[in-house]
């Protein structure tokens, strides 16, 4: 570990601990747990899109798969440690297959976006039709539009009688997010992460240097799906019910909006975007004058037009300006790759 790395890790841990302990003084922990789950979901897309240059329009599919896996495995097993692991592995495995199909087919940006979108639509449609006793996995009924209620929530590993909910759940989720954040930081510093960023910047050049782009993109895609699946499991244990709306287009849209608003190409930006916008949505849900979809849409359009780099890079620039130090601004997103000719 070099000095800079150690400083960065220490800074993240101290700031993270301060936020984890400080935020419950301002916001109810019940809401905070949801924000943490959404933050992790945003981090997953921030990793593959902001650093890997893979724009996935169906990140909600992995989130939903994680949540459903957690619920279905929980009902069949009766405790939550193994389901939690499965909730990470199943979306990752699914993403490996899907990613291999897309990246080894050398599909362009737009086709990739459309295929991921279509896949989450297929899951959404299909799960909506699974009402009735015919659709059963083990002891778990899929329940169609109403989803699956009443599965075992998170418990202390090895002690199925000790449930984690309420305030402890918040701390457990927040610490998990911090650990995932550190793992992502480590991944980005490793040679794998550096090459992933290289692929984002110039795919052809990295390929000419002899790296297998298809395999690396597939693996990165699967890692993103694993994080999204974990976020899904956290969401499931918080909501205590999973429904097909987890796979909906609006859910996918929100993840993308969080990343844009927070700032792509930063680790913290997507989490910040998710927390701010999800809280805004929660606050707007209390009133009924203006539809909150209208506001979300307006925020997205305005950010794309006027602040396409997001909040976090602007904040960093402001901070650098205040302390008088000069740093190279973080890159926003990969240059638009050539789309199909014709």
């Amino acid at each position, binding site marked *: 570990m070099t000095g800079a790395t150690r400083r960065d890790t220490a800074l993240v841990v101290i700031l993270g601990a301060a936020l984890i302990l400080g935020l419950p003084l301002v916001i109810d922990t019940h809401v905070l747990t949801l924000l943490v789950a959404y933050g992790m979901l945003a981090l997953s897309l921030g990793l593959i899109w902001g650093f890997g240059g893979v*724009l996935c329009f169906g990140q909600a599919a992995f989130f939903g798969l994680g949540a459903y896996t957690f619920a279905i495995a929980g009902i069949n097993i009766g405790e939550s440690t193994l389901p939690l692991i499965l909730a990470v592995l199943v979306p990752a495995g699914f993403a490996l297959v899907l990613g291999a*199909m*897309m990246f080894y*087919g*050398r*599909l*362009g*940006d*737009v*086709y990739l*976006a*459309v*295929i991921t*979108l*279509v*896949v989450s*639509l*297929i899951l959404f*449609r*299909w799960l909506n*039709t699974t009402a009735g006793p015919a659709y059963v996995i083990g002891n778990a009924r899929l329940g169609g539009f109403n989803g699956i209620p009443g599965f075992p929530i998170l418990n202390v590993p090895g002690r199925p009688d000790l449930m984690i909910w309420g305030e402890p759940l918040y701390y457990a989720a927040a610490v998990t997010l911090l650990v995932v954040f550190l793992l992502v930081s480590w991944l980005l510093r490793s040679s794998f992460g550096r090459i992933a960023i290289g692929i984002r910047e110039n795919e052809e050049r990295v390929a000419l240097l002899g790296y297998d782009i298809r395999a690396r993109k597939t693996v990165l895609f699967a890692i993103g799906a694993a994080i999204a699946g974990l976020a899904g499991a956290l969401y499931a244990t918080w909501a205590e019910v999973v429904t097909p709306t987890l796979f909906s*287009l*609006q859910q996918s*849209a929100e993840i*993308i*909006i969080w990343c*844009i608003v927070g700032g792509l190409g930063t680790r913290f930006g997507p989490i910040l975007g998710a927390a701010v916008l999800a809280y805004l949505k929660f606050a707007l849900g209390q009133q009924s004058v*203006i*539809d*909150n*979809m*209208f*506001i*979300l*849409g*307006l*925020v*997205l*359009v305005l950010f*794309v*037009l006027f602040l*396409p780099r997001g909040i976090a890079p602007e904040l960093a620039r402001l901070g650098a300006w205040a302390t008088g130090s000069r740093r190279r601004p973080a890159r926003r*997103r990969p240059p*638009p790759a050539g*789309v*199909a*000719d*014709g």
Partner: protein
Amino acid sequence: MDLAVVILVEVLYAIASLALISAGLAVVFGMMKVINLAHGEFMVLGGYATITAVGLGVNIFVAMLVVAPLVVGLFGLIVERLVFRHLYGRMIDTMLASWGLSLMMIGAFKMIFGNTTTGVSGPIPGFTVGNYQINGYNFFIIVVSVLLLIAMLAVLRGTRAGLVARGTMQRSDMAAALGHSPDRIYMLTFAVGSALSGLAGAVLAPLVGLVPTAGAAFIAKAFITVIAGGPSLVAGLASAAGFFGLVNQFFSFLVSPVVGDVALLVAAVVLLRLLPRGITTRFFRGRL
């Protein structure tokens, strides 16, 4: 025999409606390379325009074929000036801005028309073939789609405006050097594409109950049809709609309509994997 007639009509109707909902997007995305994720909401706007006009006492055919395209075309013109104009060539940004636009439109529909289903009744009575009842309106949609495709082909191939538009999409710098204004041509092309979406939404409005979120049902089908079609506008539209319509109806009759929808999406994923640039890069090459 009667059943065969009914199935034939259903298949033709499925193909026609796919072509219809994709026509506007084929112009905006296929020609201009603008990924308009608000396409579904443009269609819903056309539907609401029709219903409002009928409510005000306008003849339903006038409302569908004249009022709705005008309203949505005008709306497209405004949006193009305000938003899309700044984003040409930035594909991902266009995609995100139009997604924001679609969310805004859904929110606006909810605020104006309420979160309920509104509809108009179909103006053409049904008739019977043997033991089966056929919705007469299906024929209207088939006729409108065929006429629309022929009209698009005629405009693109036969008129000077079509020629200039096609030329500008290929080399806007050359078009500018020849004295045309790419900015204005882009603006008008976008408006025409929007008007086509409005027409599609209006014509389909009597068949589907309109809810503010109805656009989502169209958007995926429209995109996969246009992308699977490939670079040739009309031939691509017709061939992709034909293929997907057949797959959809085949599985709908065999299993259930939902399985038909899922089969359509799966077929799209497989087709894109096999022909990533669309059907017309391999077949019907070089046609329009």
